[in-house]
Protein backbone atom coordinates (compact mmCIF):
# COMPACT_ATOMS: atom_id res chain seq x y z
CA UNK A 1 0.00 0.00 0.00
CA UNK A 2 2.74 2.44 0.83
CA UNK A 3 4.43 4.46 -1.90
CA UNK A 4 1.22 4.79 -3.88
CA UNK A 5 -0.80 7.96 -4.17
CA UNK A 6 -3.93 7.62 -2.08
CA UNK A 7 -7.41 8.77 -3.06
CA UNK A 8 -8.76 11.67 -1.01
CA UNK A 9 -9.88 9.88 2.10
CA UNK A 10 -12.54 12.37 3.10
CA UNK A 11 -14.50 11.66 -0.05
CA UNK A 12 -14.59 7.88 0.14
CA UNK A 13 -17.79 7.88 2.17
CA UNK A 14 -19.73 9.57 -0.59
CA UNK A 15 -17.72 8.99 -3.77
CA UNK A 16 -18.07 5.43 -5.12
CA UNK A 17 -14.99 5.74 -7.35
CA UNK A 18 -12.81 7.01 -4.52
CA UNK A 19 -14.12 4.32 -2.24
CA UNK A 20 -13.45 1.59 -4.81
CA UNK A 21 -9.89 2.79 -5.17
CA UNK A 22 -9.36 2.88 -1.43
CA UNK A 23 -11.02 -0.50 -0.93
CA UNK A 24 -8.93 -2.25 -3.55
CA UNK A 25 -5.78 -0.75 -2.13
CA UNK A 26 -6.49 -1.94 1.39
CA UNK A 27 -8.88 -4.89 1.43
CA UNK A 28 -6.16 -7.54 1.49
CA UNK A 29 -4.41 -5.88 4.37
CA UNK A 30 -7.62 -5.48 6.34
CA UNK A 31 -8.47 -9.14 5.79
CA UNK A 32 -5.02 -10.13 7.02
CA UNK A 33 -5.40 -7.81 10.00
CA UNK A 34 -8.59 -9.61 10.95
CA UNK A 35 -7.27 -13.12 10.37
CA UNK A 36 -4.36 -12.36 12.68
CA UNK A 37 -6.97 -12.07 15.41
CA UNK A 38 -9.91 -14.23 14.46
CA UNK A 39 -9.91 -17.90 13.47
CA UNK A 40 -13.46 -18.15 12.13
CA UNK A 41 -13.71 -17.39 8.39
CA UNK A 42 -17.30 -16.24 8.66
CA UNK A 43 -16.42 -13.85 11.44
CA UNK A 44 -13.46 -12.68 9.35
CA UNK A 45 -15.88 -11.81 6.57
CA UNK A 46 -18.25 -10.01 8.94
CA UNK A 47 -15.52 -7.98 10.57
CA UNK A 48 -13.85 -7.11 7.28
CA UNK A 49 -17.18 -5.75 6.12
CA UNK A 50 -17.63 -3.88 9.36
CA UNK A 51 -14.19 -2.29 9.16
CA UNK A 52 -15.01 -0.82 5.77
CA UNK A 53 -18.45 0.27 6.91
CA UNK A 54 -16.74 2.09 9.77
CA UNK A 55 -14.32 3.61 7.27
CA UNK A 56 -17.23 4.87 5.18
CA UNK A 57 -18.82 6.43 8.25
CA UNK A 58 -15.61 7.98 9.54
CA UNK A 59 -14.13 9.22 6.26
CA UNK A 60 -15.61 12.70 6.42
CA UNK A 61 -13.89 13.26 9.76
CA UNK A 62 -10.45 12.27 8.46
CA UNK A 63 -7.95 14.99 9.28
CA UNK A 64 -4.76 13.36 8.13
CA UNK A 65 -2.53 11.05 10.05
CA UNK A 66 1.13 10.31 10.31
CA UNK A 67 1.69 7.47 7.92
CA UNK A 68 -1.35 8.51 5.92
CA UNK A 69 -4.61 6.64 5.50
CA UNK A 70 -2.96 3.33 6.33
CA UNK A 71 -2.43 4.14 9.98
CA UNK A 72 -5.87 5.72 10.15
CA UNK A 73 -7.29 2.51 8.75
CA UNK A 74 -5.40 0.42 11.30
CA UNK A 75 -6.83 2.55 14.06
CA UNK A 76 -10.35 1.93 12.80
CA UNK A 77 -9.75 -1.78 12.28
CA UNK A 78 -8.39 -2.11 15.75
CA UNK A 79 -11.43 -0.37 17.23
CA UNK A 80 -13.75 -2.68 15.32
CA UNK A 81 -11.94 -5.77 16.53
CA UNK A 82 -11.76 -4.48 20.09
CA UNK A 83 -15.48 -3.79 20.06
CA UNK A 84 -16.08 -7.31 18.79
CA UNK A 85 -14.07 -8.81 21.63
CA UNK A 86 -16.01 -6.76 24.15
CA UNK A 87 -19.34 -8.05 22.97
CA UNK A 88 -20.81 -10.64 25.24
CA UNK A 89 -23.64 -11.72 22.98
CA UNK A 90 -22.42 -12.29 19.50
CA UNK A 91 -25.86 -13.22 18.19
CA UNK A 92 -27.32 -9.90 19.19
CA UNK A 93 -24.67 -8.08 17.28
CA UNK A 94 -25.00 -10.21 14.17
CA UNK A 95 -28.22 -8.47 13.32
CA UNK A 96 -26.49 -5.15 12.90
CA UNK A 97 -23.75 -6.29 10.61
CA UNK A 98 -23.69 -6.21 6.89
CA UNK A 99 -23.25 -9.95 7.35
CA UNK A 100 -20.15 -10.32 5.24
CA UNK A 101 -20.48 -14.07 5.74
CA UNK A 102 -23.45 -13.94 3.42
CA UNK A 103 -21.00 -13.18 0.63
CA UNK A 104 -18.74 -16.17 1.24
CA UNK A 105 -18.63 -19.22 -0.97
CA UNK A 106 -16.74 -22.48 -0.43
CA UNK A 107 -13.61 -21.23 -2.21
CA UNK A 108 -13.55 -18.12 -0.06
CA UNK A 109 -13.76 -20.16 3.10
CA UNK A 110 -10.92 -22.43 1.94
CA UNK A 111 -8.79 -19.42 1.10
CA UNK A 112 -9.52 -17.71 4.41
CA UNK A 113 -8.80 -20.93 6.30
CA UNK A 114 -5.38 -21.10 4.65
CA UNK A 115 -4.71 -17.56 5.77
CA UNK A 116 -6.04 -18.31 9.23
CA UNK A 117 -3.77 -21.34 9.49
CA UNK A 118 -0.80 -19.28 8.35
CA UNK A 119 -1.39 -16.80 11.13
CA UNK A 120 -1.87 -19.39 13.86
CA UNK A 121 1.31 -18.42 15.72
CA UNK A 122 0.54 -14.74 15.38
CA UNK A 123 -2.86 -15.28 16.94
CA UNK A 124 -1.18 -17.12 19.81
CA UNK A 125 0.98 -14.07 20.34
CA UNK A 126 -2.09 -11.87 20.16
CA UNK A 127 -3.75 -13.96 22.86
CA UNK A 128 -0.69 -13.63 25.08
CA UNK A 129 -0.96 -9.88 24.88
CA UNK A 130 -4.47 -9.84 26.30
CA UNK A 131 -3.07 -9.94 29.83
CA UNK A 132 -1.34 -6.59 29.36
CA UNK A 133 -2.90 -3.26 30.28
CA UNK A 134 -4.88 -1.88 27.34
CA UNK A 135 -2.59 1.00 26.46
CA UNK A 136 0.56 -1.09 26.46
CA UNK A 137 -1.07 -3.98 24.70
CA UNK A 138 -2.34 -1.76 21.91
CA UNK A 139 1.13 -0.55 20.99
CA UNK A 140 2.80 -3.93 21.24
CA UNK A 141 -0.01 -5.50 19.25
CA UNK A 142 0.33 -3.14 16.33
CA UNK A 143 4.12 -3.41 16.35
CA UNK A 144 4.57 -7.12 16.99
CA UNK A 145 1.42 -8.59 15.46
CA UNK A 146 0.88 -6.20 12.56
CA UNK A 147 4.41 -5.05 11.85
CA UNK A 148 3.83 -1.32 12.17
CA UNK A 149 6.64 0.95 13.21
CA UNK A 150 6.34 2.62 16.59
CA UNK A 151 5.58 5.91 14.85
CA UNK A 152 2.83 4.29 12.79
CA UNK A 153 1.38 2.59 15.83
CA UNK A 154 1.36 5.91 17.66
CA UNK A 155 -0.51 7.48 14.76
CA UNK A 156 -3.01 4.63 14.59
CA UNK A 157 -3.68 4.99 18.31
CA UNK A 158 -3.63 8.78 18.19
CA UNK A 159 -0.95 9.05 20.86
CA UNK A 160 2.45 10.71 20.91
CA UNK A 161 5.41 8.71 19.67
CA UNK A 162 7.24 9.06 22.96
CA UNK A 163 4.21 7.70 24.75
CA UNK A 164 4.10 4.77 22.36
CA UNK A 165 7.76 4.02 22.97
CA UNK A 166 7.31 4.06 26.72
CA UNK A 167 4.29 1.79 26.52
CA UNK A 168 6.07 -0.57 24.17
CA UNK A 169 9.00 -0.80 26.53
CA UNK A 170 6.73 -1.52 29.49
CA UNK A 171 4.83 -4.13 27.53
CA UNK A 172 7.97 -5.94 26.53
CA UNK A 173 9.27 -5.83 30.07
CA UNK A 174 6.02 -7.27 31.34
CA UNK A 175 6.26 -10.15 28.93
CA UNK A 176 9.82 -11.06 29.83
CA UNK A 177 10.07 -14.30 31.77
CA UNK A 178 10.25 -13.68 35.47
CA UNK A 179 13.84 -13.93 36.65
CA UNK A 180 14.70 -17.19 38.35
CA UNK A 181 15.01 -16.60 42.06
CA UNK A 182 18.11 -18.20 43.53
CA UNK A 183 17.19 -20.92 45.94
CA UNK A 184 19.02 -20.84 49.28
CA UNK A 185 21.29 -23.81 49.61
CA UNK A 186 19.64 -24.97 52.79
CA UNK A 187 16.37 -25.41 50.98
CA UNK A 188 17.83 -27.61 48.30
CA UNK A 189 16.72 -31.13 48.81
CA UNK A 190 19.13 -33.65 47.42
Amino acid sequence: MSGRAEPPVRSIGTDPAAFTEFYRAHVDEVTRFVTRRVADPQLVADLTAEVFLAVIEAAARYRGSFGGPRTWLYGIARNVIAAEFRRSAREQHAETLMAGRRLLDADDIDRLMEQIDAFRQVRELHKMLQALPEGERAVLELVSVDGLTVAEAAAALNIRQVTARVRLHRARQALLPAPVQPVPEEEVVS
Partner: protein
Amino acid sequence: MNVSELRPPCGFEDRLEAELVKVVTARAARAARPQRLKRRAAAAMRRPAARAGVLAVGTAVAAAAGFAFGPSLSHRPAAPQTAPSSAGGLVHIRTAAFTVDTYPDGTVHVTWDKSQYIQDRQDIAVLQQALREAGFPVLIKEGVFCQGPHDNGHLGQGGVGPGVGQVMTGENGPDGTVVFTFTPSAMPAGEELFIGYLSPSQLAVTHGQPGSVERLVPTGVPLTCTTQAPLLPHSGAER
Protein backbone atom coordinates in the same frame (compact mmCIF):
# COMPACT_ATOMS: atom_id res chain seq x y z
CA MET B 1 -3.43 6.32 -9.73
CA ASN B 2 -6.82 5.23 -10.91
CA VAL B 3 -8.96 2.26 -10.13
CA SER B 4 -7.84 0.33 -13.17
CA GLU B 5 -4.29 0.23 -11.82
CA LEU B 6 -5.43 -1.85 -8.89
CA ARG B 7 -6.28 -5.48 -9.25
CA PRO B 8 -10.00 -5.93 -8.79
CA PRO B 9 -10.54 -8.24 -5.86
CA CYS B 10 -12.00 -11.64 -6.50
CA GLY B 11 -14.30 -13.88 -4.55
CA PHE B 12 -15.75 -12.63 -1.30
CA GLU B 13 -13.80 -9.38 -1.49
CA ASP B 14 -15.27 -8.65 -4.90
CA ARG B 15 -18.82 -9.21 -3.68
CA LEU B 16 -18.15 -7.17 -0.57
CA GLU B 17 -16.89 -4.35 -2.75
CA ALA B 18 -20.17 -4.36 -4.67
CA GLU B 19 -22.18 -4.23 -1.43
CA LEU B 20 -20.09 -1.45 0.02
CA VAL B 21 -20.25 0.60 -3.15
CA LYS B 22 -24.04 0.44 -2.83
CA VAL B 23 -23.71 1.88 0.66
CA VAL B 24 -21.50 4.70 -0.58
CA THR B 25 -23.80 5.38 -3.51
CA ALA B 26 -26.78 5.61 -1.17
CA ARG B 27 -24.88 8.00 1.08
CA ALA B 28 -23.96 10.11 -1.91
CA ALA B 29 -27.62 10.27 -2.91
CA ARG B 30 -28.63 11.28 0.60
CA ALA B 31 -25.92 13.91 0.72
CA ALA B 32 -27.19 15.40 -2.52
CA ARG B 33 -30.82 15.23 -1.50
CA PRO B 34 -31.13 18.33 0.72
CA GLN B 35 -30.19 20.71 -2.08
CA ARG B 36 -32.55 18.99 -4.48
CA LEU B 37 -35.36 19.07 -1.96
CA LYS B 38 -34.81 22.73 -1.19
CA ARG B 39 -35.25 23.52 -4.85
CA ARG B 40 -38.39 21.39 -5.00
CA ALA B 41 -39.74 22.93 -1.81
CA ALA B 42 -39.24 26.38 -3.23
CA ALA B 43 -41.08 25.35 -6.37
CA ALA B 44 -43.88 23.84 -4.31
CA MET B 45 -44.27 27.02 -2.31
CA ARG B 46 -44.72 28.98 -5.52
CA ARG B 47 -47.65 26.79 -6.59
CA PRO B 48 -51.21 27.63 -5.57
CA ALA B 49 -51.61 26.45 -2.00
CA ALA B 50 -54.98 24.80 -2.38
CA ARG B 51 -54.88 22.61 -5.41
CA ALA B 52 -58.04 20.67 -6.04
CA GLY B 53 -57.87 17.16 -4.70
CA VAL B 54 -54.76 17.60 -2.65
CA LEU B 55 -55.34 16.30 0.82
CA ALA B 56 -52.15 17.44 2.35
CA VAL B 57 -48.66 17.35 1.06
CA GLY B 58 -46.38 18.97 3.53
CA THR B 59 -43.21 18.87 1.56
CA ALA B 60 -41.91 18.97 -1.88
CA VAL B 61 -41.01 15.34 -1.50
CA ALA B 62 -44.44 14.05 -2.24
CA ALA B 63 -45.09 16.68 -4.84
CA ALA B 64 -41.92 15.89 -6.64
CA ALA B 65 -42.64 12.21 -6.47
CA GLY B 66 -45.77 12.84 -8.45
CA PHE B 67 -48.17 11.64 -5.82
CA ALA B 68 -51.81 12.47 -6.39
CA PHE B 69 -53.16 12.87 -2.91
CA GLY B 70 -56.71 13.26 -4.04
CA PRO B 71 -60.01 11.52 -4.41
CA SER B 72 -58.38 8.88 -6.54
CA LEU B 73 -56.16 7.91 -3.64
CA SER B 74 -58.82 7.07 -1.17
CA HIS B 75 -62.53 7.18 -0.83
CA ARG B 76 -62.22 8.09 2.79
CA PRO B 77 -62.88 11.63 3.91
CA ALA B 78 -59.95 13.94 3.52
CA ALA B 79 -57.95 14.79 6.59
CA PRO B 80 -57.46 18.43 7.49
CA GLN B 81 -54.76 19.97 5.41
CA THR B 82 -51.66 21.09 7.22
CA ALA B 83 -49.28 23.85 6.47
CA PRO B 84 -46.51 22.75 4.21
CA SER B 85 -43.06 22.49 5.63
CA SER B 86 -40.39 24.57 4.06
CA ALA B 87 -37.58 22.66 5.70
CA GLY B 88 -35.52 20.99 3.06
CA GLY B 89 -35.07 17.28 3.50
CA LEU B 90 -37.94 16.95 5.93
CA VAL B 91 -41.10 15.03 5.12
CA HIS B 92 -44.50 15.96 6.52
CA ILE B 93 -47.36 14.22 4.80
CA ARG B 94 -51.00 14.12 5.78
CA THR B 95 -53.43 11.82 4.05
CA ALA B 96 -56.75 10.49 5.16
CA ALA B 97 -55.12 7.19 6.08
CA PHE B 98 -51.82 8.14 7.67
CA THR B 99 -49.29 10.82 8.45
CA VAL B 100 -45.55 10.76 7.89
CA ASP B 101 -43.25 13.18 9.68
CA THR B 102 -39.49 13.35 9.88
CA TYR B 103 -37.91 14.70 13.05
CA PRO B 104 -34.64 16.53 13.57
CA ASP B 105 -33.11 13.46 15.18
CA GLY B 106 -33.52 11.63 11.88
CA THR B 107 -36.38 9.41 12.94
CA VAL B 108 -39.55 9.11 10.90
CA HIS B 109 -42.89 8.93 12.67
CA VAL B 110 -45.86 7.33 10.98
CA THR B 111 -49.34 7.42 12.42
CA TRP B 112 -52.21 5.56 10.88
CA ASP B 113 -55.42 3.80 11.46
CA LYS B 114 -54.18 0.36 10.69
CA SER B 115 -57.54 -1.16 10.04
CA GLN B 116 -58.25 1.38 7.31
CA TYR B 117 -54.76 1.50 5.98
CA ILE B 118 -54.36 -2.09 4.97
CA GLN B 119 -57.49 -1.98 2.87
CA ASP B 120 -56.06 0.36 0.31
CA ARG B 121 -53.20 -0.78 -1.88
CA GLN B 122 -52.54 2.66 -3.21
CA ASP B 123 -52.03 3.94 0.29
CA ILE B 124 -49.44 1.23 0.76
CA ALA B 125 -47.56 2.33 -2.32
CA VAL B 126 -47.69 5.97 -1.24
CA LEU B 127 -46.49 5.17 2.27
CA GLN B 128 -43.67 3.07 0.92
CA GLN B 129 -42.57 5.92 -1.31
CA ALA B 130 -42.89 8.44 1.50
CA LEU B 131 -40.73 6.38 3.84
CA ARG B 132 -38.12 5.89 1.16
CA GLU B 133 -38.06 9.60 0.48
CA ALA B 134 -37.57 10.13 4.20
CA GLY B 135 -34.47 7.96 3.98
CA PHE B 136 -35.91 4.75 5.34
CA PRO B 137 -35.43 1.74 3.05
CA VAL B 138 -38.61 -0.28 3.05
CA LEU B 139 -40.57 -2.72 0.93
CA ILE B 140 -44.29 -2.93 1.68
CA LYS B 141 -46.72 -5.45 0.24
CA GLU B 142 -50.20 -6.63 0.95
CA GLY B 143 -51.07 -10.29 1.04
CA VAL B 144 -47.54 -11.30 0.09
CA PHE B 145 -44.81 -12.23 2.56
CA CYS B 146 -41.16 -12.15 1.62
CA GLN B 147 -37.95 -13.21 3.29
CA GLY B 148 -34.26 -13.26 2.43
CA PRO B 149 -32.42 -16.37 1.28
CA HIS B 150 -30.85 -16.92 4.69
CA ASP B 151 -33.89 -16.13 6.78
CA ASN B 152 -35.14 -19.16 8.67
CA GLY B 153 -38.61 -17.71 8.69
CA HIS B 154 -38.79 -17.35 12.45
CA LEU B 155 -41.12 -14.62 13.61
CA GLY B 156 -41.48 -13.37 17.13
CA GLN B 157 -44.49 -12.04 18.90
CA GLY B 158 -46.66 -9.93 16.67
CA GLY B 159 -45.12 -11.21 13.44
CA VAL B 160 -41.84 -9.37 13.88
CA GLY B 161 -38.54 -10.84 12.74
CA PRO B 162 -35.08 -10.48 14.32
CA GLY B 163 -33.57 -7.01 14.32
CA VAL B 164 -36.76 -5.19 13.38
CA GLY B 165 -37.02 -3.63 16.81
CA GLN B 166 -33.87 -1.66 16.16
CA VAL B 167 -35.31 0.15 13.19
CA MET B 168 -39.00 0.29 13.98
CA THR B 169 -40.94 0.58 17.18
CA GLY B 170 -44.65 0.99 17.61
CA GLU B 171 -47.15 1.95 20.21
CA ASN B 172 -50.85 2.48 20.36
CA GLY B 173 -51.89 6.05 20.09
CA PRO B 174 -55.17 7.70 21.03
CA ASP B 175 -58.38 6.94 19.18
CA GLY B 176 -57.27 3.58 17.91
CA THR B 177 -54.33 4.91 15.96
CA VAL B 178 -50.94 3.24 15.80
CA VAL B 179 -47.78 5.31 16.00
CA PHE B 180 -44.60 3.86 14.57
CA THR B 181 -41.13 5.32 14.81
CA PHE B 182 -38.71 4.37 12.07
CA THR B 183 -34.99 4.99 12.55
CA PRO B 184 -33.14 5.11 9.23
CA SER B 185 -29.70 5.35 10.85
CA ALA B 186 -30.23 2.04 12.62
CA MET B 187 -30.89 0.12 9.44
CA PRO B 188 -28.06 -2.38 8.79
CA ALA B 189 -26.24 -1.67 5.57
CA GLY B 190 -27.49 -3.68 2.63
CA GLU B 191 -30.83 -4.38 4.22
CA GLU B 192 -34.30 -2.94 4.22
CA LEU B 193 -37.46 -3.47 6.20
CA PHE B 194 -40.07 -5.67 4.65
CA ILE B 195 -43.65 -5.09 5.78
CA GLY B 196 -46.31 -7.49 4.63
CA TYR B 197 -49.89 -6.62 5.51
CA LEU B 198 -52.35 -9.41 5.60
CA SER B 199 -55.16 -9.05 3.13
CA PRO B 200 -58.72 -8.96 4.47
CA SER B 201 -59.20 -12.62 3.61
CA GLN B 202 -55.97 -13.54 5.39
CA LEU B 203 -56.96 -11.48 8.39
CA ALA B 204 -60.15 -13.45 8.54
CA VAL B 205 -58.02 -16.55 9.06
CA THR B 206 -55.53 -15.14 11.56
CA HIS B 207 -58.01 -12.90 13.37
CA GLY B 208 -55.39 -10.18 13.29
CA GLN B 209 -52.69 -12.27 14.97
CA PRO B 210 -50.64 -11.26 13.15
CA GLY B 211 -52.08 -8.38 11.18
CA SER B 212 -48.78 -7.77 9.50
CA VAL B 213 -45.30 -9.23 9.19
CA GLU B 214 -42.09 -7.25 9.53
CA ARG B 215 -38.67 -8.59 8.65
CA LEU B 216 -35.27 -7.22 7.73
CA VAL B 217 -34.41 -8.46 4.26
CA PRO B 218 -31.27 -8.03 2.18
CA THR B 219 -31.36 -5.67 -0.75
CA GLY B 220 -30.11 -6.59 -4.19
CA VAL B 221 -30.91 -10.28 -3.92
CA PRO B 222 -34.03 -12.20 -4.88
CA LEU B 223 -36.44 -12.67 -2.03
CA THR B 224 -38.59 -15.70 -1.46
CA CYS B 225 -42.22 -14.63 -1.31
CA THR B 226 -45.42 -16.45 -0.60
CA THR B 227 -49.07 -15.63 -0.36
CA GLN B 228 -49.35 -18.00 2.57
CA ALA B 229 -50.03 -15.89 5.63
CA PRO B 230 -47.80 -16.78 8.57
CA LEU B 231 -49.48 -18.41 11.50
CA LEU B 232 -47.84 -17.51 14.76
CA PRO B 233 -47.46 -20.03 17.56
CA HIS B 234 -50.16 -19.69 20.18
CA SER B 235 -51.98 -17.15 18.06
CA GLY B 236 -55.21 -18.94 18.55
CA ALA B 237 -56.03 -18.69 14.89
CA GLU B 238 -57.56 -21.58 13.04
CA ARG B 239 -56.77 -22.88 9.62
